């Protein structure tokens, strides 16, 4: 079982963002998607939870085609996917505990005590235990991101989608988050999709790495294959040399 993007097209008005993007996320792996800012990485990730629907092409999750899924089943399916938003997207009007408990409350069948216990566990996983009564506005950027991760894992999802989890963080916090991503895979056994434009993190956390360029997949391979690539566009991106990337279609 896996997540598959099959030849996905997506345009916003005249602006074509995805132009035949295909990707398969294998069970148990962590797949990193690299790409310049504005290349459509977030758009691609949102297709995986049905936040966008493809103009053309199909998205499959666990063998089910999202396009044909009735709303109720889509919601059911989303319970198996944790989404870590780029800027955490915490609910400002709620405390961290309430934020993390949101998904659990929706699933139902858990008592308030069980929810509180699970919330405390999740906050402990991201080293935020004891801060549950705070509001998002009272946190630092790194803490907020970790809360976002805690919220995403609260419902014990099968998949975790991280949208730029380390962007804008200091090196130490960045390393903490990278370790966290690795632990999620090891301890919880989740399949992960990580969006980043940080090549070092990508090589550290990714089993495989893909690169999105001008709406299509430009590269897919292991970290070693990435480092050995001869494709000037990919090479230019990982070495930070834009002059190499200049090519016409």
């Amino acid at each position, binding site marked *: 079982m896996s997540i598959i993007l099959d030849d996905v097209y997506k345009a916003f008005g005249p602006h074509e963002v995805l132009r035949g993007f295909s990707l398969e996320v294998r069970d148990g792996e962590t797949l990193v998607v690299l790409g310049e800012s504005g290349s459509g990485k977030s758009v691609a990730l949102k297709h995986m939870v049905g936040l966008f629907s493809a103009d053309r092409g199909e998205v499959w999750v666990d063998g089910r085609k999202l396009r044909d899924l009735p709303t109720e089943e889509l919601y059911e399916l989303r319970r198996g996917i944790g*989404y870590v938003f780029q800027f955490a997207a915490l609910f400002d009007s709620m405390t961290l505990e309430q934020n993390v408990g*949101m998904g659990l409350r929706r699933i139902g069948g858990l008592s308030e005590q069980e929810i509180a216990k699970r919330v405390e566990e999740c906050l402990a996983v991201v080293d935020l235990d004891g801060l549950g009564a705070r509001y998002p506005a009272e946190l630092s950027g790194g803490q907020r991101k970790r809360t976002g991760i805690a919220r995403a894992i609260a419902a014990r999802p099968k998949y975790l989608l991280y949208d730029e989890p380390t962007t804008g963080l200091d090196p130490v916090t960045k390393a903490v988050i990278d370790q966290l991503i690795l632990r999620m895979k090891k301890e919880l056994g989740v399949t992960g999709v990580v969006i980043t434009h940080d090549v070092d993190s990508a090589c550290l956390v990714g089993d495989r790495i893909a690169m999105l360029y001008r709406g299509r997949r430009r590269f897919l391979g292991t970290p070693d294959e990435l480092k050995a690539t001869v494709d000037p566009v990919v090479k230019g991106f990982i070495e930070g040399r834009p002059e190499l990337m200049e090519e016409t279609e």
Partner: protein
Amino acid sequence: MTERLLAPFTAIGRAALSLASGIGRWGVFAGDTVRSLRHVDVWGRLLLEQMSRIGADSVPIALFISTFTGVVLALQASYTFTGAIPMYFVGVLVGKTMMLELGPVLTGLALSGRVGANIAAELGTMRVTEQVDALETMAYPPLAYLVAPRVLAGIIMFPIVTVLAVGIGVVSGWLTSLQLLDMSTAEFLRGLTLFFRPFDVVFTVIKATSFGLIVTSIGCYFGFHTRGGAAGVGQSTTRAVVASSMVILVLDAFWAVVLL
């Protein structure tokens, strides 16, 4: 040359089209919201909180406005009626105007600023910071979670706030008549009861309910479709207030034509 001559018509045509498509999109939005009402488990718990925020918290501003409206109505009525018309008509004017027109409309306009702007800004911020998407990923239907409780609270609470405002407005008009106009309570009451029909109260409630629907649903509509960061939130807020104020006035005329 022809192009320049046609320019004003083109502008009018474009404005009409965008108005029509705006109304259409709002209609679709409203329809989706109605459909989202089936998720009672999602909005049910939030309704009281919204009733409190949208309704109960708006009582002070509504009462403040209607108190002064009552005073001014009484004074202006007595000023207009000097000599020719009996003073008890002050009671008629205060009662009728508060109930049929100023109570619902001023409350509606004040709340379109307080409630409509607040909703648009809140939902707009949630949209641009991806909190709406976050709700989706946690399997909360955003319309049921964000829009339904606010619109329902508006429909329930606007009439309630308006009735209180009308009550206070009439009382302040009465006190003004007693203190500043040398009228007697009996005189004021005579005017107040003279042309009163129970339908006046029904009319007040119908108007206020429709204003509640308009202010909250327009606030939600613009907030929900916000794009483009903080500037987008500001724009949505302004648009929500302008649009709901205009619709309130149009609806006001509509009800007057249909029901009076």
